């Protein structure tokens, strides 16, 4: 038993090394970085972080990203819940075809959609707003949420619904007060995935925004190239993008293992 645990430890060390390097870089001055190799920051500085927290073009990037990711997660889960319920409880005309069609959208390369999305969202005058990115990310997050939630709902016995209706619950009341709480873990896991895939996606987010809604990830590419390659600043901005993800995983940590197992193909 003890000998086996060496494998996950080595794996986690491997995962942490590049992250350590990014964080270490963020505390170094540009001079120190360019002067040569140093394992630890020699002249520890918070200058890079100060730039990000005082310059609106930097910190608005974070606010923008968090805004559209949140909108996307809320929309995806809200519309996916009733749909997943329909798929898990009822047979209806074209249900299987519809389910498969939804999943095919998860397979579409974002690069295929970049230009048409730009034209579409310009045409409906949503270009460079949170809504554009939030709605565009629905393309892959809604199918995934339906897929995950349907798996969880399949694990809830149908008797639960029937008993509630016999007891005189209306459908909306049953759905909101009994059914959704019974698949809490599933909602958590689906929200986690929506957050994750919206937070990490850049190609569409960058294509659909210019100034007002520009995501932090895009701010990084622009500023890095215009102000000369400022590695310390880039590393600090990168380090800060890890934090929201870390917070979200912390909240779903107890569901991660159990949650995955219940979602099925």
């Amino acid at each position, binding site marked *: 038993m003890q000998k086996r*645990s060496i*494998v996950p430890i080595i*794996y*986690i060390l491997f*995962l*942490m*090394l*590049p992250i350590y390097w990014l964080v270490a*870089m963020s505390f170094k001055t540009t001079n120190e*970085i360019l002067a040569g*190799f140093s*394992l630890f920051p020699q002249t520890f500085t918070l200058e890079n972080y100060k730039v990000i927290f005082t310059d609106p073009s930097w910190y608005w990037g974070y606010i923008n990203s968090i805004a559209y990711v949140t909108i996307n997660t809320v929309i995806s889960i809200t*519309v*996916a819940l*009733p*749909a997943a319920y*329909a798929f*898990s409880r*009822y*047979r*209806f005309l074209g249900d299987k075809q519809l389910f498969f069609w939804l999943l095919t*959208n*998860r*397979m*579409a*390369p*974002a*690069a*295929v959609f*970049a*230009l*048409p999305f730009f*034209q579409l969202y310009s045409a409906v005058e949503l270009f460079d707003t949170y809504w554009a990115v939030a709605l565009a990310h*629905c*393309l892959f997050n*809604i*199918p995934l949420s339906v897929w995950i939630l349907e798996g969880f709902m399949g694990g809830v016995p149908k008797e639960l619904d029937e008993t509630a209706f016999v007891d005189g619950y209306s459908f909306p009341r049953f759905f909101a007060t009994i059914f959704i709480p019974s698949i809490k873990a599933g909602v958590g896991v689906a929200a986690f995935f929506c957050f994750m895939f919206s*937070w*990490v*996606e850049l*190609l569409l987010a960058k294509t659909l925004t210019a100034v007002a809604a520009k995501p*932090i*990830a895009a701010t*990084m590419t622009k500023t*890095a190239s215009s102000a000369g390659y400022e590695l310390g600043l*880039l590393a600090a901005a*990168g380090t800060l*993008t*890890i934090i929201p993800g*870390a917070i*979200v*995983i912390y909240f779903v*940590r107890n569901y*991660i*293992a*159990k*949650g*995955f197992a219940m979602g*099925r*193909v």
Partner: protein
Amino acid sequence: MKTENQKAWFFVLPVLLLVAFNALIPMMTVVNYSVQETFGDNVFFWQGLDWFQQILRSERFHAALGRQFLFTFLILIIEVPLGIAIALSMPRKGLWVPVCLVLMALPMLIPWNVVGAMWNIFTLPDIGLLGYFLNHVLGINYDMTQDPLAAWVTIITMDVWHWTSLVVLLSYAGLVSIPDAYYQAAKIDGASNWSVFRFIQLPKMKTVLTIAILLRFMDSFNIYTEPFVLTGGGPGNSTTMLSIDLVKIALGQFDLGPAAAMSLIYFAITLLVSWLFYTLMTKDDLN
């Protein structure tokens, strides 16, 4: 048993509208471009299937497609067994389990261009941790901006770093759902470790592994941001994957017709392979 109820369509309607808005309208735009030629000013000429023939015959497309399949093949044969092995060696319960899971999930929540930038900083020959170690401690001449092999090794390592955890988490979820009684029964029967794996653990992991392999296939086949930031598709064209090539044609050269035709071929290949995977992996369940 599910009951027949056509009103269920009302539940599905919001999803249908949102996804259709995002999928059908852009898809029609792509189809539209793929059969026309334009010289700007919104003037279009009917081109028929010329673009499709041109793309299917172009050596550039064949090369990018070949690199794409090689990349996806390599990361699948590394990440899937490695992920299973790590999941098997994890403890089933204990204080450290949530800590391990959180740390393992971390790479997946980092924006993709930050992953690229992070690996760029990590592998810089003289000031990156890995680059310095390889060049100055081990004495291997490593510079991925010059050497295609080094670029490939770096991209594969980056993807293994980035996504193996997905396989680990999913396999682990399958493993913890196995009741202890199964293991006890196997112990009484004197089953070897291999037969425990082959007849108890692997079948239990099958559905989650199907999800893992499908997701890894789709995402690696559509990979764009990480190699774009890390190598920019270079040196030369050696790491230009399909998506990078597509964006070059569509937004770089603004050749809308060929780009649209390539998009459709690309999407069709992704669909076909996903369908094949899915059918192969769920074949036994149907019998």
